[in-house]
């Protein structure tokens, strides 16, 4: 099927009234949780997941994906006005967004982040349309050993491309793999690590794990923090939002560079928007003629990262839809949603479910256009939301989290699980262990083990198969390259380089 056919089919799916409705709900909820600091896209998607059991799978995916990319739009609003990132990925936007607001240029900053989010997304959606079908076709030739190698690459990329200690990140990936083993072994039916608990026979619920590590941990970390100072913006007039011609010129190239960096990082399995926006910011600062303006309200400093995080979010669908390997922790939960709906993401998806694949892609266009409307003319509505005190919000979120995990299995046991992972997630955050790799390890672990065992069976126990099969060998080499890039410069050098950052 060529792309034009696909677009036509996708528009038929995405422009039905119910698809439009769920897309609108998705992006509105996404903007909502994005604007509010303390609840991210991950918690929102996990919460909405049980609600979608009754929907048509395509509509469900359109809505859940809408929450994901909608949150990236909303996240920058709190960064600009409160100096508090609305989502973790918008943290970098605080650096220059808040100074801009202090200078009274909040409307301009909000406009620029919205328009750049749109450009970044556009760029990446085009790439998804072009590349996902090609990669899927190529991936049909993958054997078990190739799958093992590409999953391994995803896990290694996710843990080596984080800030902070690579040992801690790698340890967390491995810990996630261990959590993924809990439950019944698919090959032999053996119960593993269930400790006699009947509730663990199916393993941990992904919703409970994600909401504990991200939702509950986030709430514990935020309670008792002094409230941020909301920059009063008064009435946001459209006239104040429009950049001057000179300002347009300043942001053009950073936006395009940000989109490119974001798409690349997002398309790598395992790496997400947080890293993408950070890299885009670092690149802009390095090549800028006026690096001293960064951190004091440089427009480049908000346009590049915002374009990058949106691009990476859309590009994360490339590996997910073509290989069945999530590009990021949030997409991993989305993948969990597809599996719950009986759809196995993988190279066959595009051929077997073309209306779902193209419908989802076309809904990205619809959703991003809706977001542009939600975030420019209707921005005042979201800004007002920021004046709701956090301490009234978190009990509601806690109750929704409890109900959300309960509804997955109608079982109180999962509430205990979510609490356990919440405490663990908070302690990890406090000691510098990243939580995203745990989730990726948890989701990819069973796939990794299954493909390993299958590859061993097919190769008669020959471990060299991972290096003799050409596709697998390339992925293995890339994984080694990632690991080498972290450990080669020497541990000591890394630590001394990081020391000034830690004291900031």
């Amino acid at each position, binding site marked *: 099927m060529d792309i034009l056919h696909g677009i036509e089919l996708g528009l038929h799916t995405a422009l039905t009234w119910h698809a439009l409705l769920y897309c609108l709900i998705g992006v509105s909820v996404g903007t909502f949780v994005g604007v509010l600091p303390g609840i991210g896209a991950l918690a929102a998607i996990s919460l909405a997941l049980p609600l979608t059991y009754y929907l048509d799978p395509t509509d469900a995916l359109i809505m859940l994906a809408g929450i994901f990319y909608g949150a990236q739009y909303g996240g920058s609003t709190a960064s600009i006005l409160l100096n508090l990132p609305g989502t973790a990925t918008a943290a970098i936007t605080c650096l220059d967004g808040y100074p801009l607001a202090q200078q009274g240029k909040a409307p301009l900053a909000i406009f620029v982040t919205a328009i750049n989010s749109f450009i970044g997304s556009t760029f990446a959606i085009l790439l998804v349309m072009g590349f996902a079908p090609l990669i899927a076709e190529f991936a049909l030739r993958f054997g078990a050993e190739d799958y093992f190698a590409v999953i391994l690459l995803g896990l290694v990329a996710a843990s080596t491309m984080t800030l902070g200690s690579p040992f801690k990140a790698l340890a967390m990936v491995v810990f996630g793999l261990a959590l993924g083993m809990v439950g019944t072994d698919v090959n032999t039916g053996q119960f593993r690590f269930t400790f006699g608990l009947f509730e663990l026979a199916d393993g941990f619920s992904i919703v409970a794990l994600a909401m504990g590590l991200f939702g509950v941990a986030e709430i514990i970390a935020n309670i008792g923090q002094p409230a941020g100072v909301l920059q009063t913006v008064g009435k946001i007039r459209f006239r104040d939002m429009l950049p001057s011609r000179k300002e347009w010129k300043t942001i053009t190239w950073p936006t395009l560079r940000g989109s490119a960096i974001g798409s690349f990082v997002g398309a790598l399995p395992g790496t997400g928007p947080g890293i993408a926006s950070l890299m885009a910011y670092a690149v802009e600062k390095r090549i800028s003629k006026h690096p001293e303006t960064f951190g004091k309200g440089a427009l480049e400093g908000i346009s590049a990262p915002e374009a990058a995080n949106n691009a990476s979010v859309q590009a994360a669908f490339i590996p997910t839809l073509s290989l069945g390997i999530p590009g990021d922790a949030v997409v991993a939960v989305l993948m969990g949603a597809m599996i719950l709906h009986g759809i196995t993401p993988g190279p066959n998806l595009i051929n077997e479910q073309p209306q779902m694949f193209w419908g989802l892609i076309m809904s990205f266009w619809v959703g991003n256009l809706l977001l542009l409307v939600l975030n420019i003319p209707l921005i005042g509505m979201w800004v007002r939301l920021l004046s709701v005190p956090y301490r009234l919000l978190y009990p509601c979120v806690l109750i929704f989290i*409890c109900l959300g995990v309960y509804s997955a299995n109608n079982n109180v046991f999962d509430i205990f699980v979510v*609490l356990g992972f919440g405490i663990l997630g908070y302690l990890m955050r406090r000691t510098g262990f990243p939580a995203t790799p745990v989730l990726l390890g948890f989701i990819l672990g069973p796939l990794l083990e299954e493909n390993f065992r299958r590859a061993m069976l097919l190769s008669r126990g020959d471990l060299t198969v991972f290096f003799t099969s050409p596709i697998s060998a390339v992925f293995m080499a890339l994984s080694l390259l990632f690991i080498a890039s972290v450990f080669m410069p020497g*541990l000591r050098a890394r630590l001394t380089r990081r020391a000034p950052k830690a004291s900031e």
Partner: protein
Amino acid sequence: MNRYLISHFLPGAVVVATGVAIALVSLGYPMGNLLRPGPGFFPMVIAVLLSLLGIGVLAEARVAYRARSAAPGDTEAQPPFPWRPVLCTCAGVLVFALTVERIGFVPASCLLIAITAFAETERSWIRLALVALFIALFGSLVFIWGLGLPLTAFGAS
């Protein structure tokens, strides 16, 4: 100082201990061989990897500790552990989980809201009552009536 030492090396030690624990448990599962890896094979590999990485974390902590002893000037104080928010949140969620099937969704939610309110240094009961009202209406409408969760608003389910 001793306290500092413990909190500094504890995370790495916990990772190593977790690895060892996983290894001990997976000894109880059939290991199989490379041709036919059993259910215990993969856990054992994971356990060994985790322990090794934990040793890496410890080594890193040691390097940082040395660097710090060499230049004792820039000591960054770890913020004190926020016992109050942690305990209140946990107690709130625990009580909710234990009561929601016995006394109903609305009373359990009120309990959670009341308990977590003590996580903050000040609280406004009027506003919290409004929150409780919102939760009672919205939660009952969406989750119990809309999604058909096997819970009741009041009373045992």
